[in-house]
């Protein structure tokens, strides 16, 4: 009886073409990998420290030289200005590390997905599963980071709670785009390109200075790039400076989720189901 029930369910799922249970199984694989060895933990922990170190060295250190900052009529310490940006960066890099390095390795070398695709799991379910896991990883970083911010007095508790869901969205957006990117990677040399791009975003997206301080053409250019929207959204929520612009930022990030997933699923099917 039980078998008939489950068989009926999986048959139905197959017609719909998408099964949350199978997405969960893809996530479960990564949980298993985490349990099985220390190597994954090292990767995980190191990803968290980078933005924290920047916050301490530049936000607090350089901040002591810079003094207070006035942006859009609000005055704050430089560290309080930089911290939300570092939060957005940690959401981005957590998700990207998972969906680029790890996923690329699984596609190209470990052939993990070839084994997975021999089961009822479909490429789109792999994409969703990996994205879910990447977002969990990114959110783990941001939750701890928010705790640090509150402890250092760089954000009120209310602001931190409001910013957390936004960091999840940031993780989803960059994770989805990262998935699409890793299906387009030719080899490890392309990762140099990626990390250069990531570093440029990190420096210029209104992270260390307000974008209004740049020349107009640069400001426009920055407003086209993704991390800017992540930083603005997260900073606005941290500082409780709500505005209509937030809807635009959120829409930009949502578009990244949809576009990234769509392309990733398509490319995976191309790559693996030849």
């Amino acid at each position: 009886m039980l078998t008939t029930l489950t068989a009926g369910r999986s048959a139905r799922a197959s017609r719909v073409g998408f099964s949350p249970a199978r997405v969960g199984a893809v996530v479960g694989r990564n949980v298993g990998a985490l349990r099985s060895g220390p190597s994954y933990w090292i990767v995980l922990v190191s990803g968290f420290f980078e933005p924290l170190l920047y916050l301490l060295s530049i936000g607090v250190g350089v901040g002591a030289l810079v003094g207070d900052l006035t942006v859009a009529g609000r005055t704050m310490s430089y560290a309080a200005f930089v911290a939300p940006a570092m939060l957005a960066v940690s959401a981005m890099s957590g998700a990207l590390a998972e969906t680029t390095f790890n996923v690329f390795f699984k596609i190209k070398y470990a052939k993990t997905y070839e084994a997975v695709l021999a089961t009822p799991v479909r490429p789109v379910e792999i994409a969703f599963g990996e994205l879910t896991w990447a977002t969990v990883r990114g959110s783990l970083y941001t939750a701890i980071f928010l705790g640090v911010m509150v402890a250092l007095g760089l954000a009120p508790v209310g602001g931190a709670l409001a910013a957390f869901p936004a960091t999840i969205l940031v993780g989803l957006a960059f994770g989805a785009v990262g998935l699409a990117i890793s299906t387009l990677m030719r080899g490890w040399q392309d990762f140099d390109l990626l990390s250069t791009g990531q570093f440029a975003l990190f420096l210029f997206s209104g992270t260390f200075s307000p974008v209004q301080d740049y020349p107009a053409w640069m400001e426009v250019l920055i407003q086209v790039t993704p991390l800017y929207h992540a930083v603005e959204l997260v900073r606005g929520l941290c500082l409780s400076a709500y505005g209509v612009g937030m809807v635009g930022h959120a829409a930009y990030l949502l578009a990244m989720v949809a576009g990234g997933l769509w392309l990733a699923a398509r490319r995976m099917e191309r790559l693996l189901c030849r």
Partner: protein
Amino acid sequence: MIFARGLVKRFGDFTAVRGIDVEVAPGEAFGFLGPNGAGKSSTMRMISCVSAPTSGELRILGMDPVRDGTRIRARLGVCPQLDNLDPDLTVRENLTTYARYFGLSRAEGRRRADELLEFVQLTERAGSMVEPLSGGMKRRLTIARAMINEPDIVLLDEPTTGLDPQARHLLWERLFRLKQRGTTLVLTTHYMDEAEQLCDRLVVMDGGKIVAEGSPRSLIERYSTAEVVELRFPDGLDLNADYAAKLDGIGERVDPLPDRVLLYADDGDAAVAEVQRRGLSPSSVLVRRSTLEDVFLHLTGRTLVD
């Protein structure tokens, strides 16, 4: 179980499979025999519903692999040519994780994993990571993994390539047990002895086409003789063709190879006697039973090399 008519697979300009007809019955052990590049693996990938046929008709378990791929794959077990076990997971987790992809509960996954580890004799290595395992162990684990969903058909792509003789025999024995349980086996191989050991019926593929079909025995009867005499001559190599001319008429067929001359005859000893009567003195004489290798040689006109 499997039904194919005029099955074609093209990759760009390259045609890997050029219109093959195949039918596999329940409980049968069916083999695709052929050299590398014959189109075996492409055929297997189409059957395992990860690669869509370019043209032709293909039905697996009565379903269409393009439309019902997910449902078909739920009932297949796939053992690929190269082990793609998960290096980040332990031996046992490789199985339990795989069980989840089929929608099995955690408890059921663990139960089957332990049972299968027992079956492939890997219980002691359950907690080990995959990397330190030997080639034979990895292969057995891959086969165990292919069985986690209790499949109706198990697809094995070159199951024993690269294994040492001991590992091969252990694997054959396990596959034979699987067959006894009534599981349909479909395998590819370029080992003649493997095909003879495991297959009830097989097709010989060459250049994307099926060149012969039948049971190992019937193929040998049709395309070879009961026995084969292998002759090596001391000054052989370049002169084998000349020797072949001198041997003409003995047995049914004479085949000069670079390193030896093959004499196809139903009575090997009589053929050897005739060789000696003609005053030829080969440096070594071997009379053996005919094998699928001889069939392959006859069908394609060349030895089976990679």
